[in-house]
């Protein structure tokens, strides 16, 4: 079943040097699955995520033939209607929990606010909800954490709190924009497994934006590889190592591998033809 259907999505920024196109005609669909978007810095993967929620700041322009969420086209919604979509239907976890929690509000206040934005509930019900949500992201002693400020939390805890905050209005789709790149390796797996259980249990769709190919190959179902605003290849995550596009091959070969040691790693050579080639559709 298709949750999200994106067709021909463009993000443009007019500037003095002409129009800069960050995302150029991207199409894909998302079901109840874990979809990864992979690419180097500046390939437009985060912009794609933000464009779905229409959170591109002016002067940025978003155009698309359709961005439909369970059959409703988001492109035709007004800003006011979009507010009901954000958080409640589609949510997003951002890169660094240090910067994505308000430093002067307690964690409890922030989670309760996130819940009450979309649910008319009394403070005590919201408090109970927040407590159980914190338990769901395996935070020990949630009552103490509710009273704490973000600077008292470690990175891994912060990211789990962010996940709790973003999932408490029970959205249908979670966009995770490099949720683990600010965390160290041992914590990464823990956070990922929490995302995984919550997403599967609730039957949500996950868009996982990352630059870590190995992580994505393990964790996701399908992978879109983006290069300069376009999708250059779509493949199943388990077959990622058999990818055909020279860019994907280049990315794979530029990583060291324990079972195939090499004297020199490949340097990514970029072919201008890649950015000219039309975008591959990621629709099923």
């Amino acid at each position, binding site marked *: 079943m298709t949750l999200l259907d994106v067709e021909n999505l463009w993000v443009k920024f007019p500037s003095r040097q002409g129009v800069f196109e960050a995302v150029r005609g991207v199409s894909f669909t998302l079901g109840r699955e874990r979809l990864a978007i992979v690419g180097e810095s500046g390939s437009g993967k985060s912009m794609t995520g933000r464009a779905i929620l229409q959170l591109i700041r002016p002067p940025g322009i978003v155009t698309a033939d359709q961005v439909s969420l369970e059959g409703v086209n988001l492109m035709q919604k007004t800003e006011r209607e*979009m*507010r009901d979509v*954000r*958080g409640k239907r589609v949510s997003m976890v*951002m890169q660094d929990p240090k*910067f994505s929690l308000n*430093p002067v509000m307690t964690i409890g206040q922030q989670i309760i*606010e*996130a819940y009450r934005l979309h649910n008319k509930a009394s403070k005590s019900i919201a408090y109970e909800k927040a407590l159980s949500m914190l338990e769901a992201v395996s935070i020990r002693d949630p009552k103490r954490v509710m009273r704490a400020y973000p600077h008292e939390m470690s990175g891994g805890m912060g990211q789990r709190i962010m996940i709790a905050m973003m999932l408490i209005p029970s959205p249908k789709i979670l966009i995770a924009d490099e949720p683990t790149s600010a965390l160290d390796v041992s914590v990464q797996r823990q956070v990922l497994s929490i995302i995984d259980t919550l997403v599967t249990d609730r039957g949500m769709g996950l868009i996982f934006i990352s630059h870590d190919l190995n992580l994505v190959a393990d964790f996701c179902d399908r992978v879109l590889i983006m290069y300069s605003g376009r999708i250059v290849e779509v493949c199943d995550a388990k077959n990622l190592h058999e990818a055909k596009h020279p860019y994907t091959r280049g990315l794979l070969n530029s990583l060291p591998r324990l079972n195939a040691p090499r004297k020199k790693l490949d340097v990514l050579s970029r072919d201008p033809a890649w950015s000219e080639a039309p975008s591959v559709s990621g629709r099923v």
Partner: protein
Amino acid sequence: MAMIGLWILVLLVMIAVGAPLLAPHNPFAQELGNRLQPLWSEGHILGTDSLGRDLLSRLIYGSRITLYIVGLVALIAPITGLLVGTVAGYVGGWTDQVLMRITDIFLAFPRLVLALAFVAALGAGIENAVLAISLTAWPPYARIARAETLTIRSSDYISAIQLQGAGAMRIITKHIWPLCISSLIVRVTLDMAGIILAAAGLGFLGLGAQPPSPEWGAMISEGRRFILDHWWVAAVPGMAIFTVSLAFNLLGDGLRDVLDPKDSEK
């Protein structure tokens, strides 16, 4: 040093509250036979003015007026500035342009001149003096609030709350205001001295508090006529203005050291 400032101000507040108990005489009672008594004369420690009113009592009652003016201005100006600045900074675009150009217009005039113009238009009196000073005091606050908002609005936690579906009103009042307030508080305490001087200046020019009210600026103005022969009539309220202004500045400096995150790391 900040503590000295704080103690002077605490003392001032206590004097203002306990004025009826502390004042040895009625500040309005005239005694023409006893006019222009020098310092330390009997029954009048700070002497008397040209109508024989006790200067100490007038000084004590005058602290109430000073605190009234300072308090009201310190409420009106920062709140107006905060509103204008955060809205301009958050909404951006045309709203920002219009609001900030209005702010620039107010900033372009010297404070006392603009206040004079407002009081002249509204009519003399303490309430109008408060209004006039507030009208001239808010633009710097708007600028500070806007600058803070510009840095805050592009931060990740504002994006986070936006993508949870919060509207502009909620973001400005619940997420941006609390972060702007500490820098505004510092500015307010540093501004207090200026406010006192402006109020005294208006009183001196006859546009603030009206006689016989014991406003310090107006008292200096009355003493001006005898400044060569009876200097204390002007000097006593002058010293009061000086001390209180200094106290506010000391406190402001101290608060800035405490509240400024850039300094706290040292």
